[in-house]
């Protein structure tokens, strides 16, 4: 998409100076947020940041290595459970989180092994089975707390004296998301990242060029699972509760949708995708007849049409139609996802008005 003129350009952490400045601005804004914003906004930002971590992790696998996974809710669950169980036996949370992520990574490595021989739909089914199995094991085994999950301990980390639980959590979640972004961006610029991309473009060619397929494919799964597990651990504290049924197939599909809607194989894409899907998820829930009346011009007609053909008790389901329509429109008009919009917008402004 962006032309690179030398190897050094490709190696730079930030492509352009303005990009760097924007990142600084975003960092300042996010750092100021806990002092200025209320509990609800911090919760939403935290929810988005957790999804961002999952999306960039999943993107390492889907976007850069060209493998597919319908089982990432499983890694998310492993991260959540492992963090809570480790914290419950007395480990400090800041230690339990990375340890749990490593456990998730180990499972990612195991799941990566069948990926060596499977591709496309076959791999999708294997990962799907993994996700379903994990959900059921956690829900059924009494060591994991059964149907209501294990009790989540208090969040005893304090970053600034006087900060509330929510403010402290926000700092940890957003900082982790920032570091994860930086880590993945760095990873992709290294030998390992190039190996991933080579496998995605053609695994036979990559193998001929000396890329060890066994090692790098399983590594991609492990790295991806690491970030997803990390996000899962944060999620357990963010919600203050672990409910095994919430780690279901739908969640895996939403994760995948974040990456695809955002734009596979880029750093910014999954971030945009995670933000978009998270907001749609949280904001569409309150859709009412009155909201349709406010659509300019055709509003009253649309509302009247819906009133005739929908039962009031079924109205709430309209959110899924709107949700689906938005996703279809994005993919129809911008197959590269939200990242594609960004690229196009940038090109347009670069040449405008000359």
């Amino acid at each position, binding site marked *: 998409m962006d032309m690179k003129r030398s190897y050094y350009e490709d190696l730079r952490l930030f492509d352009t100076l303005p990009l760097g*400045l924007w990142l600084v601005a975003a960092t300042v804004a996010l750092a*100021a947020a806990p002092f200025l914003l209320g509990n609800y906004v911090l*919760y939403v930002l935290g929810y988005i940041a957790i999804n961002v971590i999952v999306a960039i992790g999943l993107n390492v696998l889907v976007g850069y290595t060209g493998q597919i996974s319908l089982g990432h809710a499983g890694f998310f669950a492993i991260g959540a459970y492992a963090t809570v169980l480790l914290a419950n036996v007395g480990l400090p949370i800041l230690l339990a989180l990375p340890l749990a992520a490593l456990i998730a990574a180990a499972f990612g490595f195991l799941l990566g092994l069948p990926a060596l021989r499977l591709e496309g739909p076959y791999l999708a089914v294997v990962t799907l089975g993994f996700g379903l199995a994990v959900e059921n094991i956690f829900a059924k085994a009494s060591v994991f707390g059964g149907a209501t999950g294990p009790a989540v301990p208090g969040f005893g980390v304090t970053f600034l004296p006087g900060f509330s639980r929510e403010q402290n959590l926000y700092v940890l979640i957003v900082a982790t998301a920032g570091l994860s972004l930086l880590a993945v961006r760095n990873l992709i610029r290294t030998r390992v990242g190039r190996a991933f991309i080579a496998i995605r473009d053609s695994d036979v060619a990559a193998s001929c060029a000396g890329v060890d397929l066994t090692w790098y494919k399983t590594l991609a799964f492990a790295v991806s699972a690491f970030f997803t597990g990390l996000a899962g651990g944060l999620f357990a504290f963010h919600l203050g509760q672990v409910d095994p049924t919430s780690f279901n197939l739908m969640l895996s599909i939403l994760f995948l949708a974040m990456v695809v809607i955002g734009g596979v194989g880029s750093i910014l894409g999954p971030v945009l995708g995670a933000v978009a899907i998270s907001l749609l998820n949280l904001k569409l829930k309150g859709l009412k007849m009155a909201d349709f009346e406010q659509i300019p011009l055709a509003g009253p007609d649309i509302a009247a049409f819906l009133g005739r053909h929908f039962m009031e*008790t079924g109205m709430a389901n309209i959110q899924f139609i709107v949700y689906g329509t938005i996703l279809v429109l994005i993919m129809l008009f911008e197959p590269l996802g939200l990242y594609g919009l960004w690229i196009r917008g940038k090109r347009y402004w670069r040449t405008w008005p000359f």
Partner: protein
Amino acid sequence: MLKKLGNIAALAAGLFALAAPVAAAELTGVTDTEIHIGQWGPQTGPAAPWGSVARGTGMLFQMINDAGGIHGRKIVYHMFDDQYNPAKTVAGVKELVEKAPGVFGFASGVGTSPGLAVKDYLMERGIPWVGPAAGSLHWITPPQKALFSLYPLYADEAKLLVRQLVEKEGKKKIAILHASDEYGENGHRGAVQEMQRLGLKPVAEVPVNQADRDLKSHVLLLKESGADAVLMWVNPTHAVITLKTAAALQFAPQWATSSTLSDAPLMQTISGGLWKNILFASFSELPDADTPQMKQYREAFAKYAQKGERWGVFFMAGIGFVEPMVEGLRRAGRNLTRESFIAAMETIRNYKGILGTVNFGPGQRQGAKEIFLARTDDSGTKITQLTPWAEVK
């Protein structure tokens, strides 16, 4: 370059502007003319049939507002769809609490895990919450100052059913089919305890997993145990599959089941007419009960109910779980604060609405304990109340 720096400055300014209105005073959700009350409930997704609880509450508030409100204030009701997803429950609850004018408290709310996800948040802020629509011990262990529980315990229902089967109907071989979740385990435990007290043991204890759709092996275990009565502590889908499978296997014990399956007309429809001669526990009056209150509600339903709504147990539960909250608001008087409301709630004794008798008091947070048993007839359409309202001792 300068232009870009300008952009950044504009962005930063925008973010600060967004942030500005937050540092306001505490929001109580009470104004001179309004009381704001919230509730979550699944309107979409697999749990959507329980969403009528929240709509029942809506009807109750509408009735109260049309009759002039409470001490000159109308109730403004904020119901939202959380799809039984705790992450969404938390988001919705925080949004309501923190967006002006805030909410005074929460009424009912379906589900153990959505409720658990917001319990600490609400209790830390002393925000009243009355009548969670889930039978869980979590609400009252330990008792919370601002949380008033009304759902009678599942274990009590199971005990009463066992007592009826053994003492009144002469059943000796009782088997238990239960969901392998908190709900199923509570019923299972209660039944086993009561059987021990009566010197019996269940002839079979068969768990059902959430994902199971073929229950033939489960029903065969029940049949082979020689059970003459089966306690069925499962969700509606599994209950229907169980009855269909049993009919195919010509296994016809006395079925007994919990209040969550007490919507007999619904069960009769979805089971294709198999919901016959079923013994069940109930925590609310029967839908066609002949009390003055129930007549009043049925008339209101005819007047207010939206297209597609049905007068069923869940809709009624949305009224029953919230009646005591309305009573508390009335008793708290014109000078309404969260403290005065909680104090007023503690004065509620022997209050009778749709549920059994409600008693709260200082330190007493499980308000309703009374239940009764009922039975559908051979046609599955007529329901008879078997026992009077009573607390299980």
